[in-house]
């Protein structure tokens, strides 16, 4: 059940958001789906657990493709706050810009943003791969715990504040590093991981050796009064 021939269309001018989400969430849902006239509605294609392909043809509001598992969601437009929030697996591809908190707390899966992401991209991420072709706003990867954040453009202030074990790769400038985030050596292993990520994100015109690598200095894992001023 795949291919354009079997693509099913949900027009939100004639169907409700609840009908859309419950259909896609229904046990056994499969194949390709197109969502027409999203008009920036919130919570489009959230909570999916079936391996469906969903194309949102236009701009999405808050929490698009939130809590995704196994589905592959493409947004042909911009996404509002919290796109792919708490994703577990599958993929979300935003063709435009994303607002703040993209991929927040995501445990797994792949989030690709072709444009810019707003503030707090990848906040508290726990294992996802987030690839941003443009720039990210301030406090991105704040308290990020695991996974990879790749930024082909620039990063705003306080990048990686209170970071745990997420790898951050930035190609452009970094306005400032947050507490306990430091530039790391780019080891051959890191380079290999980054090369794989760029390839996963469909980025062929940018080379891995153009990036810098940032990570946790691991001084703030446990509270020590000597480090109190660093928070």
């Amino acid at each position, binding site marked *: 059940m795949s291919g354009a021939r079997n693509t099913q269309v949900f027009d939100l001018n004639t169907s409700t958001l609840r009908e859309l989400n419950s259909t896609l969430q229904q046990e056994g849902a499969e194949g390709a789906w197109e969502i027409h006239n999203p*008009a*920036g*509605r*919130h919570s489009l294609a959230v909570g999916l657990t079936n391996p469906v392909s969903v194309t949102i043809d*236009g*701009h*999405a*509001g*808050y929490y698009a493709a939130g809590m995704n598992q196994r589905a592959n969601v493409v947004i042909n*437009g*911009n996404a*509002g*706050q919290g796109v792919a929030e708490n994703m577990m697996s599958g993929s979300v591809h935003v063709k*435009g*810009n994303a*607002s*703040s908190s993209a991929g927040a707390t995501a445990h797994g899966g792949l989030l690709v943003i072709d444009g*810019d992401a*707003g*503030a707090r991209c990848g906040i508290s991420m726990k294992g996802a791969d987030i690839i941003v072709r443009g720039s990210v*706003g*301030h406090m991105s990867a704040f308290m990020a715990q695991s996974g990879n954040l790749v930024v082909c453009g620039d990063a705003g202030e306080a990048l990686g504040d209170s970071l745990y074990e997420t790898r951050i790769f930035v190609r452009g400038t970094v306005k400032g590093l947050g507490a306990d985030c430091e530039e790391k050596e780019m080891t051959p292993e890191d380079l290999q991981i980054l090369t794989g990520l760029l390839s996963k994100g469909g980025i062929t015109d940018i080379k891995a050796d153009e990036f810098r690598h940032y990570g946790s200095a691991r001084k703030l894992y446990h509270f020590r009064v000597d480090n109190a001023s660093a928070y």
Partner: protein
Amino acid sequence: MCGIVGLFIKNPALQPELGRLTSLMLKTMTERGPDSAGFAVYGSSASGQRKMTVRGISADNIGDFEAGFLKAAGGSANVAKHQDHVVLTYASDLEPAIRAFVNGFGHGVHFASSGESIELYKGVGLPEEVAARFDLEKMQGTHAIGHTRMATESAVTIAGAHPFSTGPDQCLVHNGSLSNHNTLRRRLVNEGLTFETENDSEVAAGYLSWRLSQGDKLDQALESSLKELDGFYTFVVGTREGFAVLRDPVACKPAVMAETDDYVAFASEYRAFADLPGIENAKVFEPEPQRVYHWEHAA
């Protein structure tokens, strides 16, 4: 929460649509603010004339008010009634006399705005109802700013509804909360400003008016507010010619903008843009924190 919308028309052919588009945007933002709504429309202006919007006029006192105004204004003055709001038009040099008359009238009548082109309306109720009450759909003009309020820190009253206008042709809408507004209000009162409410947003409006009265350009006034205003805010500001947007350094409050050759639009959420013409090809972006965005019509 609260919702903010703004529409600045670049292509004059779209000016007749200003009210209709603004009312659609306000209606969509109801979920962010169902308590009260308000809007300012910058419409036509005639040289040597001023307009004042006054609110809180009841059927009982409209007769006395109109007679008193026409007496204060002399001959060529006009009164346009929109429910409990009226727009007074009069010769520019009569501004102090008209202001004194309005302030002295009593009976719950309040000054709302004045200037060459601004008209300002606000009311309690669902945004759609407030817009319909004043026939926003039929209003024309160059730019408009609107607000839907979800009251969190003060009562649901018309006085607490936005926009706030504290200077000629100026108005401000705000989503957020300011933490140093009391200190700032005292300072501004010492500078000679007066405030009608305890609302933090009115202080922000007053601060901008004060900077503008000191000779700042709109963008300079907004730059200085970044240093002086403490708290969370997304502001949309209107002046006679201009339209500006500012977000605090943390950018907690949502904001999205869309620009085409025909207009610049602002909203708290993208949804509010969905009915704008040509939105599918607009440049849609999230304004950066601490950056002043502003547009002006040629004077």
